[in-house]
């Protein structure tokens, strides 16, 4: 069933491409239907999840000579990300109902991308993981290069360049793990069980460096983030939402799924690096975002900020001295919650930023003002998204960040106290953005007489994402029960 969830979208994409002369409207509705079915299937997976270890596991031999198999399964860490991915693609599908630019290719590409994304989170084999990871890069490259706007080619190339080089380094690390294991294998659970590089500091350090470099580029953590702002700014709205919501999580997920449990000794040794890089990402991302004049670029930099909290948390989880298991578990749970939360909230904000481009072809904050007048629903959605993103209690971002702060402060008091400043800066930048664009005197770019309010498909795409962020913020147990089951395993594995 998990396999069906993964490959249903790409199968639908092949059908769409194969059948000639499908009307564009049908193509768009097929996207919605397939995404909805896939989401429903993930919900079924969730309801059958028993909460211990890997579930819904499938393992088929693939390249047995080099220990590669088709091995998929879900646990408490991957299941929420699968659900978030399927949900975000569904929102993207609804949002795309008004997409008119070569919809067939667009829909097929996004369905392909959905399979690649789900595949990354379900993979329990390094090569399978790498394959899906790279396919997602290829898919996103085309989304930006073909359906982006303004300076999109250059941004797409830059995105490709960075993340692909990152993935090659990642592959190098995977091969290092493969060679160290006895018998050599790419199977993640086996590698985790063996944690073969404990006791060999040089090789282990190098492999960790390679894996983490690759994942840090994808996440992205400062200083590897420079591909992100142009890619986000020039991508179409749905592309940005998927890029921020899903693709960035592949990096952070890789840390938790592969780097931490398979290289526990190295992780503990270099935990401080993650703490420092995390804090720098938090503050640097927030400060640079504060100075932006382009709405979409600003949201892009807040992603760097939000990913920094995750790095802080997983770095703390590798800090054993002066730390308790309860705190480490809280930090890791917070990190995974942040992945889900950021997907929902930033995904929603990127979809909303598409409204600016659709109406007035500009993201420049200076050219808008008082939009709450002509577009009250749109203003309301952006305001809710902004408050959710700045970590207001009652939304998922708070649940994530509070756990990260509370779990990290004991072991890393200075770093965590500095990271706390991040939520103040993000509060300032979001309120200033609201103030400039939505409140005060009405102002629109020249040559744009009217600004239409959120259309039904935009509302239906975005509102459920924010509603889900609200539900998680108020009643988080349904999510945290699942995440905690996975997080406690990771915490134990790192402490070995």
């Amino acid at each position, binding site marked *: 069933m998990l396999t069906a969830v993964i490959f249903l979208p790409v199968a639908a994409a092949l059908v769409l491409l194969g059948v000639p002369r499908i009307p564009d409207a049908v193509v768009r509705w097929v996207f919605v239907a397939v995404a909805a079915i896939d989401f429903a299937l993930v919900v079924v997976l969730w309801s059958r999840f028993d909460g211990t270890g890997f579930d819904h596991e499938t393992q088929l031999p693939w390249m047995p000579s080099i220990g590669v198999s088709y091995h998929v399964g879900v646990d408490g860490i991957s299941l929420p990300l699968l659900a978030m991915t399927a949900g975000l693609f569904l929102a993207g599908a609804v949002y795309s109902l008004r997409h008119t630019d070569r919809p067939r*290719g667009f829909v097929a590409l996004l369905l392909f991308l959905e399979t690649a994304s789900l595949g990354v989170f379900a993979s329990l084999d390094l090569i399978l993981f790498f394959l899906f990871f790279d396919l997602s890069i290829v898919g996103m490259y085309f989304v930006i290069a*073909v359906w982006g706007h303004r300076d999109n080619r250059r941004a797409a*190339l830059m995105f490709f360049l960075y993340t692909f080089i990152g993935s090659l380094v990642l592959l190098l690390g995977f091969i290092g793990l493969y060679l160290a294991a006895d018998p050599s294998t790419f199977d993640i659970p086996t590698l985790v069980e063996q944690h073969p590089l404990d006791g060999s500091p040089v090789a282990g350090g190098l492999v960790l460096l390679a894996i983490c470099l690759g994942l840090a580029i994808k996440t992205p953590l400062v200083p590897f983030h420079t591909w992100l702002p142009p890619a986000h700014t020039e991508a179409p709205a749905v592309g940005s939402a998927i890029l921020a919501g899903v693709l960035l999580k592949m990096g952070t997920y890789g840390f938790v799924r592969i780097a931490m449990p398979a290289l526990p000794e190295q992780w503990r040794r270099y935990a401080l690096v993650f703490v420092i890089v995390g804090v720098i990402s938090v503050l640097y991302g927030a400060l*640079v975002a504060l100075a932006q004049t382009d709405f979409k670029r600003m949201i892009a930099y807040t992603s760097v900020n939000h990913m920094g909290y995750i790095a802080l948390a997983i770095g703390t989880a590798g800090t054993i001295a002066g730390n308790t298991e309860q705190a480490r578990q809280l930090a890791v749970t917070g990190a995974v919650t942040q992945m889900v939360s950021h997907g929902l909230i930033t995904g929603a904000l990127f979809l909303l930023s598409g409204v600016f481009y659709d109406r007035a072809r500009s993201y420049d904050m200076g050219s808008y003002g008082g939009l709450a007048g002509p577009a*009250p629903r749109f203003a309301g959605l952006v305001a809710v998204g902004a*408050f959710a993103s700045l970590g207001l209690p009652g939304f998922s971002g708070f649940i994530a960040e*509070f756990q990260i702060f*509370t779990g990290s402060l004991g072991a890393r008091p200075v770093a965590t106290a500095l990271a706390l400043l991040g939520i103040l800066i993000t509060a300032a930048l979001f309120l200033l953005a609201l103030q400039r664009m939505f*409140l005060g005197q009405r102002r629109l770019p020249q040559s744009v007489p009217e600004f239409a309010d959120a259309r039904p498909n935009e509302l239906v795409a975005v509102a459920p994402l924010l509603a889900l962020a609200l539900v998680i913020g108020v009643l988080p147990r349904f999510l945290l029960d699942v995440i905690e089951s996975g997080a406690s395993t990771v915490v134990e594995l790192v402490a070995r």
Partner: protein
Amino acid sequence: MSVLLWALPGLPLITGAALLVAGRRADRRAPVIGVVVAALLVPIAVLAAITRPSVQAPMLAGLPVELAVDGLSALMAVTVTVVTLAVLVYSVAEFGRDEAASRFFGLMLIFAGAMLATVTATTLLGLLMAWEVMGAASYALIGFWWREAWRVRGATTAFITTRAGDLGLYLAAGAAFAASGSLDLDRLAALPGPWLDAVTAGVLLAAAGKSAQLPFSFWLSGAMAGPSPVSALLHSATMVAAGGYLLLRLSPLLHESGWGAETAVWLGAATAVALGAVACAQRDLKQLLAASTCAQVGFMVLAAGAGSMVGGAAHLAGHAAVKSLLFLTAGAWLTVLGSKDLDRLRGAGRRHRLIGAAFTMGALALAGVPPLTLWVTKDLVLSGAPTALWSAALVASALSAVYAGRALFTVLAPPTGRHRSRRPAPAAMAVALVGLSLPAAAFGAAALWWPGLAASPLEPVGAAVSAIVAVAGLAASAVWVRRGAPLPDAVATAGERWLGLEALARLVVVRPVWSLARALARFDDRVPAAGARGVARFGRAVAAAADERSERYLAAGVSSLARGGRVVSSFVEGIGERAIRALVGAVAAGGSRLGALARRPQTGQLHQYYAQAAVALAVLVLVFVLVVR
């Protein structure tokens, strides 16, 4: 009874959220819904105060959200619900037909729910959540008339400033968890060593921020941009007092830390004196009342530090009634006369007798005239205080008599005839004013009879001295109103600008942060260009070394672009070249896996992989050209 305690914050939160979602459609019904919910909350709070329930729900691992009602919470809950009801009744008449009543009442209810959760929370988690939601509601309500940019600026300043203080609660929560694995408020005082100090510092910071104590006071000035009912409920009676509540609740922690209590005492005293003086210098009635709020909350902070729990709590509740009454009268005048400028309100009390009477009652209570409420509660706070503190507080009391008297004698002065409006106050406003006047006058006296409070009786000498000070202050202010301000210009200006605290914050914090942010952004814009150029060069070098022929081919293909010789074009071309190489790799990887999937024989020989890669690249380039062109 547990349902009752969930309903206390839950009912207004859910109703408020529903009103916000309904939007303009619910404008007509929103006032009724708001008042009905507020009216329901009062008996719920009273029942909860009597039955003292406690409830718990799981939230984070091992860190549940718990609500409970003890003596302090009971007093707070009843105070909050009563003031909320009065303010919402008043608000029915405040907004015109075309205004977004649904948004207003929705936000007010959300605020009330958050405030009720704040005062019943028994863990830092629940407290922090409710605490920050209050701040957000405050933001949205200050900026209620969002078309006017200056109001929105006030709202933004208020939220950011209070959130800076809120970081203290995050810090406290982290420290408490690190030390004990628990966030229970009751257990904070028992924490060990440095964690205890961290929690104390965090709590003091949060309280000072929310309660607009020094040096954060300035945000409350900007908060006056909101509608008068908002000032009455949030920015005087309840939210601003939450810092005082928090310190009263955690008074044992302050004392256990060894320095927290002393800090709170002097922070409160300094704010009471400084902002009392600021209040004297205001020309705008709402600004005067706002500065006075800071000063009065200073007494509560002082009480928490001095361990005078009963006095602090009584002062909080009494002040809530008095100050909301005063803000509502200011709002009523703003509605019927169109001004809150003290000069233009001259004689307003004589024209509108009901409003004037209510204002007189409130102002006399604020001045500390016996036997009205604040005279009693202030002296409860100060009973047993050491001499130095008592003297400082006496100065603050004298100042409060001066500013209250100044406002009072101005509105009671003979009218100058500049006003034409004789519009009576709407009925709803009148009801609210009358309803609040009673507790504003008599709560203090009633508190003396309250069972359990008799343990801390008034000190007769102190009470007598403060009564004399109050009367003397009033007399001085009467002279001031008649003869004009005796202040030098510089002092008056500094007072009117709230001691330049906001300018100071901008200079010391905001501007450096902005400069840093801009510098980093400029830096960040340059890095990718340089980085990408470097990578492109590197890529070309590698390509040249690896395959001369393909290099030549590619170079020929792109040299037409590069011929212009511009750096930009060569940069782009470099990237393109790299990307194609990267694509080769991607397809090679993908192709070889797919090949394996199809159970093709794996030769492991490199040249075959390269052949596959070349074929795949050709396909990909074809697709790319077809799709893109």
